[in-house]
């Protein structure tokens, strides 16, 4: 059980980290939509065009790291039987 929790924690942290990095390593808050600026040719006005686009931010990275840390911490609690055979004797 301890090994399972630690493996899950490692997988969770790695997955979140890879996801965040692959999405562009956004150093800010998570975005659910992104604006790109376009220019009107007649008036010269720059205007935003919003598109739904999920970009994970450091808040999501921190939440993932926190969840992984909690799993790892639970694995250290003395509520699980040890894996050492001698200990079980």
């Amino acid at each position: 059980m301890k090994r399972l929790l630690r493996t899950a924690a490692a997988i969770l942290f790695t997955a979140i980290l890879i996801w965040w990095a692959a999405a562009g390593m956004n150093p800010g808050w998570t975005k659910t939509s992104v604006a790109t600026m376009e220019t009107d040719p007649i008036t010269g006005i720059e205007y935003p065009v919003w598109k739904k686009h999920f970009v994970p931010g450091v808040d999501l990275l921190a939440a993932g790291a926190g969840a992984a840390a909690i799993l790892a911490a639970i694995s250290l609690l003395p509520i699980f039987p040890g894996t050492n055979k001698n200990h079980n004797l």
Partner: protein
Amino acid sequence: MKHTAIIIATAAALAATATAEEIAFDLKDPKGVNNIVFTLDAPLESISGTANGISGTVEVDPAEPEEIEGKIVVDAKSLTVPNSLMQEHMLGAEWIDAEKHPEITFEIKEVLNPVKNGNEGTADVKGVFTLKGVSKEITVPAKVTYLPGRLSDRTNGKMQGDLIVIRTNFQIKRGDFGIKAGENLDKVSDTIDISLSIAGSAPKP
């Protein structure tokens, strides 16, 4: 003879100026380019958003584009930020309270220090800015550009008329308008940078 011609030409020019009429420009742009960009400084990253629900009317004498009057109205619910949860909070009762105060307005009262350069004019515009039901008199620097006959270009020839473009950048303090005054200053700055770019159209029959 030469003097007479100059006097007649000058008189004609003065008469034209005197008879020039104010044109009412509708700020509800059919192409939806009119927008406001707002930015608040914050520790992790600046919170930046836009608003595009702009309407209202301004009246301008093309001969004096810096002499402008009217009212700009922004639909508070059109304020948009990149995070949907953040947007929900922003429009909620503690911040903008868009349900109770659906409009953000700027009513022009006075034009100061007008400078005209061709079809462009700059001025300091004094007016009443209303946000979350609180009205304050502020003065903002504005640039006005008159584009005669250019409405046709924007409507693929369907409408004839003139365009006007108004631009301004200014700052307000959210605390002055009852938006969490003195609160959350460690998370979001009190100062809001506002950049407004709007086009108005005046169709001609």
